[in-house]
């Protein structure tokens, strides 16, 4: 089945101020795959993710999501099948209460009013915070915010889950909860992160970015054994693997 394929062909992107954002990026991600996108700060991870949801349009090259090439016409359909969790949950939780926030996407995607409450609560239960539904986002802790941000995305049942540094700013316990949660998802996952330990646990495949280009793409464990590669891209061997040595 060709469903839920994410494919990039020779992507180029130059920011208006001349910064090179992406440089000749090509890859193909299959249905159900979990892919970690790693690289130092400014490597172009966020830039790439924004292309995948059609927030940035490549200067050159194309993207295909599922059966569609990504363009203006298909944008809505593509956004319906992809869900993006942003780096700062404060950017994602803009409504007065958690409930409204989770319901926002559902309403926009035309879910009938009678079903909304049901689906909102279901999404909140999946991430384990149904008790927060009446709270305002500004009164949540960092981990709770992150959980709700994920709920806002999975409520619309996307086929592809895209996350930008989901484990940043989390305490160890919240991080652990997040990892366990992500392990249970069967979606196609694309996770940009510095947290190689998390990448190791969740993703079987890793793409390493450096200065806007792909410098490695392959099995996570194998890549992380390559110390030269990690050093080159400003990363460090995951702690769990350091212990193994």
């Amino acid at each position: 089945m060709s469903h839920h394929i994410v494919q990039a062909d020779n992507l180029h992107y130059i920011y208006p101020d001349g910064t090179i954002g992406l440089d000749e990026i090509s890859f193909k991600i299959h249905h159900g795959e979990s892919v970690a996108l790693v690289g130092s700060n400014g490597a172009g991870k966020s830039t790439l993710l924004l292309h995948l949801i059609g927030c940035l349009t490549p200067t050159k090259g194309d993207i295909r999501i599922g059966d569609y090439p990504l363009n203006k016409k298909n944008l809505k359909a593509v956004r319906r099948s992809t869900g993006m969790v942003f780096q700062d949950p404060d950017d994602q939780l803009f409504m007065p209460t958690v409930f409204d926030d989770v319901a926002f996407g559902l309403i926009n995607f035309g879910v009938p009013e009678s079903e909304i409450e049901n689906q909102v609560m279901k999404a909140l239960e999946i991430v384990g915070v149904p008790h927060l539904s009446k709270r305002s986002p500004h009164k949540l802790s960092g981990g709770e915010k992150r959980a709700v941000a994920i709920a806002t995305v999975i409520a619309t049942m996307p086929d592809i889950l895209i996350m930008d540094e989901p484990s940043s700013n989390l305490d160890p316990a919240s991080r652990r909860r997040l990892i366990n949660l992500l392990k249970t998802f069967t979606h196609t996952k694309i996770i940009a992160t510095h947290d190689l330990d998390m990448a190791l646990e969740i993703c079987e495949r890793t793409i390493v970015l450096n200065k806007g280009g792909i410098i490695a793409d392959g099995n996570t464990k194998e890549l992380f054994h390559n110390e030269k590669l990690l050093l080159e891209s400003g990363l460090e061997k995951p702690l769990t693997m350091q212990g193994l040595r």
Partner: protein
Amino acid sequence: MGNLQNNLFDIFYMDTLACSKTWIHSLDPRAKVLTTLLFVGIVVSFGKYEISILIPFMLYPVIMITWANLPIIYLIKKMVLLMPFAFFIGIFNPFIDRDIILKIDLTFISLLDIARFVDLTKFIEIMGLQNSTGVIEISGGWLSFFSIMIRFSLTVSAALILISTTGFDSVCLALQKFRVPSPFIVQLMFLYRYMFVLIDEASRMVRARSLRTFDADSKMRFSLFVPMIGQLLLRTLDRAQRIHLAMCCRGFDGHIQMVRKMSFGMKEILFIAGWSFVFVMFRLYNIPLNLGILLSKLY
């Protein structure tokens, strides 16, 4: 900076108050908004020398505060902190409007034997009241000054009670039902949501500065102030862009809808009708005056 955090604390605290679960809190926000507006409208509709007739209106804040279980000391403190502007403008009245319009016969007070405890003549001197043989003469200015202060406490407490029994987003929803244009409602909601985020960001920036400059003062030099505000503004603009992206990813197309159940039932109707009746009665009949007359007849 202290100011920054105090304000944030205030808003946070009132937000928490609004989450309590008394029956006042559970009323439909529209009922509370309407009642508050009616209250404020009637309170300010009195002539400027009115004092006694305003007093029964204190029943509203007192009852609402007890019903809704609000911390009265906190509300009073907040009111006092807000007092300066009204006080500043009002305090001119006694100096300008010196026409005597009220006379109180002291013989009546001496009947009550208060004179034994309080030296009235001194009091009168301090207050700047003219004294002519046993009669206190109160100028219009003093009357209107006290009237202003009473109005002030009534209207301010009404606003504070509204927000701490209803919560900001419910007030917004009520306004939406009253057909306030949606861009304005959305604007209010976003402002409120990001106020916390930005105040937090601002206070982190200020704190970082004061750590670097070893300067505990909340004020800073202009040459430091501008880049700080500029940075904050740039970050804010970036944030707006990111929020817009996040909204688009969830299918935003210019409309924000909310599903909230609001029910305007019997309870709400009774609430509005009850208070309206009370306010109108207080407006039409000067209860304290009639009470006083009744009493003096008995006496």
